[in-house]
């Protein structure tokens, strides 16, 4: 498969690009909801528009009323989300959440997917239990209790956690903290008794919560997939989240680059456009190169994932690490090349820097994924 979009994908990209620029732009969404101190960190009206475009269920199966699209298509949406810094629960809900639910029963899908597809519901995913991404270690416990389970423990950095109608929780139903087996995924409803949130604003104005589960009683219906056998499904969800975050990062990096090159072509110092200075030209050209390479890695990983290739796992980590490195360079160069105004809240470049940080951390940073590349390569 050639490493560029098919005609269908190009059409999708065109419509999403226009939609996100018109409706998801920084002023209309990010600044608006930030400045009103919105406790969701995103706008439900736009989420409804996502649904009308068919985007919220794009990864769901056709039998479930979805579009049965793949990670390449989701990546198209995420890149535009990144470019416009659009606050949205798309990644946690329509990419990670839907991927998790796809492994669940008809009942479970019937319970949650219609709301997602209608743009009425939001999902969150709770995996990590400390400040760094460490899905290899899961201590949060779900013990058998009656016909269901009793959930006990806590989860950190659950993006959109407090806004979610259901949280997909990876919990331990057997074994010890670092065992590969013994993991079960649950769809925990918002109103379950014993769930409490410490809802925190992040640097990029998104909301994330540290969630505590205190003897939360769950029906057997809440189980997604097999009891004790959830690691494989969890890995699917993680891969979806990682490549999704990588795609969004390439959008953030590109958006930052675009406004920076525009600035280079308009700002004058020492009697000339600063874009005429060769030192800046070379840095901009190098940055261009890094962004192009990151984008290539991302689309390759998306195709491999969609094709269920064995190489997908490695390439997803390559893509996440590379996208994080390139996007980080883009926002750092962006702020520096903007000079003083780059430090002001009035200009958008600083917002890109904040989103980059948050996304780089989400589902494993460059250090985590480079380590994974080493381990998957056998060293």
């Amino acid at each position, binding site marked *: 498969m050639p490493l560029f979009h098919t005609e269908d994908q190009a059409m999708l990209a065109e419509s999403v690009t226009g939609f996100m620029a018109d409706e998801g732009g920084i002023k209309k969404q990010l600044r608006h909801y930030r400045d009103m101190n919105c406790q969701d960190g995103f706008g439900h009206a736009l989420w409804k528009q996502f649904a009308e475009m068919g985007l919220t269920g794009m990864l769901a199966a056709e039998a479930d009323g979805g579009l049965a699209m793949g990670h390449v298509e989701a990546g198209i949406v995420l890149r535009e989300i990144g470019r416009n810094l659009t606050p949205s629960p798309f990644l946690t809900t329509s990419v990670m959440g839907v991927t998790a639910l796809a492994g669940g029963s008809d009942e479970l899908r019937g319970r949650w997917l219609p709301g997602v597809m209608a743009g009425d519901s939001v999902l969150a995913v709770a995996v990590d239990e400390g*400040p760094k991404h460490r899905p290899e270690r899961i201590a949060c416990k779900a013990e058998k209790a009656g016909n269901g389970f009793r959930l006990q423990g806590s989860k*950190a950095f659950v993006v959109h956690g407090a806004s979610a109608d259901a949280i997909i929780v990876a919990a331990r139903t057997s074994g010890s903290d670092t065992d590969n087996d013994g993991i079960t995924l649950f769809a925990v409803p918002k109103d379950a008794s014993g769930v409490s949130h410490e809802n*925190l604003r992040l*640097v990029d104005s998104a909301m994330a919560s540290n969630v505590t589960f205190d003897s939360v009683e769950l029906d057997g219906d809440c189980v997604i997939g097999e009891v004790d056998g959830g690691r494989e499904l969890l890995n699917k969800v993680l891969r979806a989240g990682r490549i999704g975050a990588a795609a969004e990062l390439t959008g953030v990096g590109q958006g930052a680059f675009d406004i920076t090159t525009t600035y280079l072509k308009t700002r004058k110092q020492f009697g000339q456009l600063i874009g005429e200075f060769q030192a800046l030209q070379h840095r901009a050209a190098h940055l261009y190169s890094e962004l192009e390479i990151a984008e290539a890695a991302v689309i390759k990983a998306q195709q491999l994932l969609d094709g269920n290739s064995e190489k997908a796992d490695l390439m997803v980590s390559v893509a996440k690490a590379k996208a994080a490195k390139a996007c980080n360079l883009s926002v750092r160069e962006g702020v520096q090349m903007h*000079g003083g105004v780059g*430090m002001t809240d009035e200009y958008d470049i*600083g917002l890109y820097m904040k989103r980059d940080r948050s996304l780089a951390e989400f589902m494993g*940073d460059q250090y985590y994924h480079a380590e994974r590349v080493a381990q998957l390569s056998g060293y």
Partner: protein
Amino acid sequence: MSDLDAFRAEIRAWLEENCPAEMREPVRDEGDVCWGGRNFKFKNEAQKTWMERCAAKGYTVPDWPKPYGGAGMSPAEAKIWREECARIGARPPLSSFGIWMLGPALLKFGTEEQKVHYLNQIARGEIRWCQGYSEPGSGSDLVSLQTFGEDKGDHWVVNGQKIWTSYADKADWIFCLVRTDKANKYQGISFLLFDMTTPGVTTKPIKLISGNSPFCETFFDNVVVPKNQIVGELNRGWDVAKYLLGHEREMISGAGGGDRLNAIGAIVARNGLEDPILRADLAMFDVDALAYACMGEKFLDEAKVGRAHPAQPNMMKYAGTELNKRRHELLMSAGGATALEWESERTNGGSPSRSWLRTKANSIEGGTSEVMLNVVAKRILELPGA
């Protein structure tokens, strides 16, 4: 016992008696810094007492001459003063742009009358100063500034706009670069002083990406400045500014001491360090940071005896600020999700992320890294061309 030993004993005794216990605690945040000035709210009585006791002895500016409010200490004596303060952890009694920047400029370029008047005010913490250099169109290219002072005989009438004036909303007076000759680029700028309460002066804080507003936009609308409020000669303010920029760059580069460039691996590791590749980056950072600390020491030692290249502060600022930015990128990575919090008790009001964003200004303010590299290339390496 040598004279210096006697001096040390004297200082030690004075400090023991006069430095309040509260003033021996480490400075925790901005609120603990004593800036002085007409409107300054002392945090507590101890802060006020400490400043006043020091001012009475000239210890707020220990190496300034006595007639100007200092203690007239020699370099060796001033070093002893610093060492004895450090020994008991005494806080600086007074911090201000007056001490760090305007003071040195006045000492070099001011008239006797100006020195007696302004330096004593600074030393006693009576007047807080801000700096009016940059303008919206003149950042790195400072000399293209447009704020104009029209000659009206015994005064100028100043019109224009400054930007990045630190704490202009809290300052009493401003030292300001103003164009007084439109025909001459470099030799058409004068260094003026005036009261921020003069009619026509207004300020507007600038909100930064870190969420704080330490800087302002400052507007001048027909501001009257008497002719005796000029430092140095008419149209030669650029000489004063250049001299001052050297001081500012040293200060920002952290070459003047300060410990923010310490190695960080060990600190981070206390909270656990499970990522081997992050650990590797921290180790490489520590190598660079520990080496840079040596450079800071070497630079000060050389500067003291006049061996340092006059443009060396540009190199120090470049290397120090780039390193500090890298340090905070690593601290953010080490902190993970917790460091991303924007406001929370756990993170002391989002301190890691705000500090990280704040460091991004290091390589812009007081001369961008690009300008520093230009200066090094031209003045130290003597490479050809502009």
